[in-house]
């Protein structure tokens, strides 16, 4: 296998500036590999040319406006819709904000749900997580703790992969990786949800919510995640 193979699928993301989704190892590799940098430039060039092609991409895409050409029944529906929107207004917006799913709360909820895969083999769990979520998660090694399994949950716009670890003492730690939460900085945030104490780790390898029965083990996990990002 050539040295570029494990990194190739991430090159489009690098080209598009989505580096928060790209493993650090790939960014390191790209920095030293002329072939991969050439491919990244080709990806960028292709996008630029597609944007130039514009309308030509779509065969005879219609240009005329049709709102005025709507049938009377449809026009009435649109008018009723606008009126309903005005009446619903503030109450509706408030409902939407309140009903928006909180990914951190969803991660806490997931931490107490049954495992979907049970295994002490980190490679097997990692493979399952990758297949279930379509993304590669960072491998986190926790001293004195053993991986016991994982599950995946989906809330609107966010997939959450939760990996569970256990210590011989019985202490249990869950690490929930939130999808699409690209870190703008790094750090550990102490928080509470539904009576659970938790840590939210923002790092270059992703955002993770840690829940556990031992504060020491939770902080140890946060440190391991931050180390993985270095």
């Amino acid at each position, binding site marked *: 296998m050539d040295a570029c193979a494990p990194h190739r699928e991430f090159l489009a993301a690098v080209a598009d500036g989505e580096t928060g989704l790209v493993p650090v190892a790939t960014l390191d590799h790209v920095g030293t590999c002329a072939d991969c940098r050439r491919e990244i430039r080709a990806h960028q060039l292709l996008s630029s040319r*597609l944007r130039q092609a514009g309308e030509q991409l779509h065969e005879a895409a219609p240009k005329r406006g049709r709102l005025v050409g709507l049938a009377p029944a449809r026009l009435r529906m*649109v008018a009723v819709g606008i009126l309903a929107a005005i009446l619903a207004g503030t109450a509706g917006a408030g409902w939407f904000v309140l009903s928006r799913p909180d990914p951190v709360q969803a991660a806490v909820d997931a931490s107490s749900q049954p495992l979907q895969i049970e295994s002490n083999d980190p490679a097997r769990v990692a493979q399952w997580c990758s297949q279930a979520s379509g993304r590669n998660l960072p491998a986190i090694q926790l001293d004195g703790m053993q991986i016991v399994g994982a599950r995946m949950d989906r809330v609107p716009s966010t997939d959450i992969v939760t990996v569970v670890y256990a210590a011989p003492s019985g202490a249990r730690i869950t690490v929930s990786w939130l999808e699409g939460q690209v870190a703008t900085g790094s750090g550990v945030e102490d928080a509470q949800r539904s009576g659970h104490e938790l840590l939210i780790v923002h790092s270059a390898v992703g955002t993770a919510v840690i829940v556990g029965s031992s504060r020491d083990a939770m902080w140890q996990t946060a440190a391991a995640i931050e180390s993985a990002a270095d």
Partner: protein
Amino acid sequence: MNETNPREGVDVAAQIVELRPRLVRFAWSLTRASDAAEDLAQETIARALASQWRFQPGTNLKAWLFRIMRNIHLNELRSAGTHPALVSIEELGLDPATGRDEANPVEARIIERAALRRLAEVYRTLPQVFAVPLYLTAIEELSYADAASILDVPVGTVMSRVYRARRMLMSRLEGGH
């Protein structure tokens, strides 16, 4: 971008209608037919206007509209009993023996030399499952997270499909598909 984040003091309904050309183009990516694209865009506008109170200010209006459109389209496909076409491993540019990506070198000069009309022709041959994520990210310049939300797939899937779409385009341009 101004066009995607609703402007303060400007009626959301007006901005929805302003985005109509973009909606027609995205609808074409989904339907590959001008008449169907026109109807789909119109239906999307009607539904968005009727439920605009659901739109959360400060978020991406275009992504919200695209998500509505994609849901309408999926429902139409389900009603018609239509299923997306399967894509062969060869089409994906994978080695049939190993399933791995064939490491053909990419030549920027081929892309530079290709006429835009030729590029558009090749783009239209892409399987929809790859063309749509590429359209959203490369042409509409939405983030991978927004594209994933519109398509209801993990962001890693968007990343992989955008990569495959571009590789297919490059390969077909080179091969004179």
